[in-house]
């Protein structure tokens, strides 16, 4: 009996600290965020209210709608580019490379940049792509171009390149893990049954690695969806994303209620993507 109650006490403590933390620093702040999103901007700051004006602005004002759609497009392109680079790489490592230690080294080489400052990885692309930058001066010194080009920096492709560079480890990790789990004898059996390598890949390997693709897509999509540093450094005027607009609402525009509404929209989009990817993964597992 006594042992039972001390065990209960310790389990309350184990549970209590994280639950209290989650309530104080996640649930309450999200609640406050939601509350603010219904308030009204009024000079000099804003006043309590309950109305949906901020949300109506977000979804009807073409200015915000355009940014929202642009952000979805950029995030999708980043995820796609990461997938196209990460999948062949992970596939080669798991199924083609026989040298065990080379495999570990190459895997580490792709994950290692995660430890190197995110800000610096964005900055170095700014220094490479700029008008006065490394790429332009290199092209001019080799005589390929004669004058500096402005086409590299401050546009959407610069942003896709930079964000892909930053977030690609998040695509490699889950795909590699998924491919590693596929038993080797499955593809052997498929070859024995007369399927060529391409059909084996399409019918066996690809479907079995789908959970990894979904997880990688979710991560890279959500992370680039909320980024405001890379767009600021390499995006230029038509490269601002939702997060940049939110930053300006909390800065120069000083419209916290609208900024909060945009943040709530972002939160819900992320939650929707996570839920969808959970469903997809579970569906994939049931399928087999």
């Amino acid at each position, binding site marked *: 009996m006594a042992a039972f109650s*001390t065990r209960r006490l*310790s*389990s309350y*403590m*184990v*549970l209590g*600290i*994280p639950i209290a*933390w*989650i309530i104080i*620093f*996640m649930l*309450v*702040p*999200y609640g*406050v*965020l939601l509350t*603010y999103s219904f308030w009204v901007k009024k000079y000099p700051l804003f006043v309590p209210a309950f109305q949906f004006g901020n949300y109506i602005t977000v979804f009807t004002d073409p200015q915000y709608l355009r940014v929202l759609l642009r952000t979805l497009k950029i995030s999708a392109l980043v995820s796609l580019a990461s997938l196209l680079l990460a999948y062949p*790489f992970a596939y*080669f490592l798991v199924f*083609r490379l026989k040298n065990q230690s080379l495999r570990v080294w190459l895997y580490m*080489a*792709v994950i*290692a*940049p995660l*430890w*190197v*400052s995110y*800000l*610096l*990885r964005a*900055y*170095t*692309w700014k*220094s490479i792509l*700029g008008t*006065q*930058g*490394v790429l332009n*001066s*290199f092209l001019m*010194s080799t005589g390929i171009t004669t004058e500096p080009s402005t086409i590299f920096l401050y546009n959407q492709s610069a942003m896709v390149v930079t964000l892909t*560079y930053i977030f690609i480890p998040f695509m490699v990790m889950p795909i590699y893990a998924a491919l590693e789990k596929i038993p080797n004898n499955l593809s052997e059996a498929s*070859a024995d*049954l*007369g399927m060529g390598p391409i059909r084996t890949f399409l019918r066996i390997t690809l479907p079995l690695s789908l959970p990894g693709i979904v997880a990688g897509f979710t*991560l890279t999509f959500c*992370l680039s*969806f*909320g980024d*405001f*540093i890379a767009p600021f450094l390499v995006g230029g005027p038509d490269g601002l994303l939702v*997060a940049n607009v*939110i930053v300006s609402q*909390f800065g120069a525009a000083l419209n916290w209620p609208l900024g*909060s509404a945009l*943040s709530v929209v*972002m*939160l819900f989009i*992320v939650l929707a993507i996570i839920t969808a990817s959970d469903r997809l993964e579970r569906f994939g597992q049931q399928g087999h």
Partner: protein
Amino acid sequence: MSTASTDTAMISTVSRARKPGLVSRYAADMAFMAFVALLMAFLYVPIWVLIIFSFNDSRTLTWPLSGFTLDWYGTLFSNQDLLAAIGNSFYVATSATILTLIVGIPAAMAINKFQFPGKALFRRLILLPITLPGIVTGISMLNMFRLFGFNLSLETVILGHATALLSVVVTQVYSRLQRLPRSLDEASADLGAKGWQTFLYVTLPNLKTAIIGAALLSFVLSFDEIPVTFFLTGRENTLPMYIYSTMRRGVTPEINAVGTLIVLASLVLIVISVIMSREANRSRQSL
């Protein structure tokens, strides 16, 4: 009909698989290798650009290189704002790491061990910041601090980081907990150990490398964090915030010099974490 067609298919693949198969496999491997080399160039040329231009004696980052200098490093060490920012970053990252471990280890144990109402929600909320952009964490906490009249400071930044990094600690510790045989706990209880004794003498030593790994990663991520810091800091700057504000003014070799030092520090930490995980593997094999 169908068996006949598979038979012929089989025969044809078997005959095809002899010599041309080897050649095409070799060609495919070469193509893969070229692809991997290009990917490595994509990943590492930018980092080398960062490093090389920190030693170049020109204010602009242009090719060809003009000459070797250590001046940019010299100016760093006389820059008081920068040194203060580095100090702040150490304070923030250390405190946030300790806090997130204190909350994260019990959270991972709770998810691993207990059944309780709302567990699914609990787990989901804790893991949310992995995918949730830092800006949402930053803004929601900013709103709360403002509403309740707290002033922004390095301490509010620490609370923000600890919240955002909780997911890192929980995933690392939880995946180790799952691999620990439950019989260890049971054996300890059979031998008369109390719950806290089992935790202290059985569970914790087995978690040691996972905890150190999680702590290292949290420290690095906190040291490097911008989106949460951006909204929650008061007057003081952390190192990345300082660098970010310098970047707004443009590209300068001083940033490359700071960056090179940060890359060097990251390299040291990567080596430490690799050694740690090797040791963990070895001890697990000997178990």
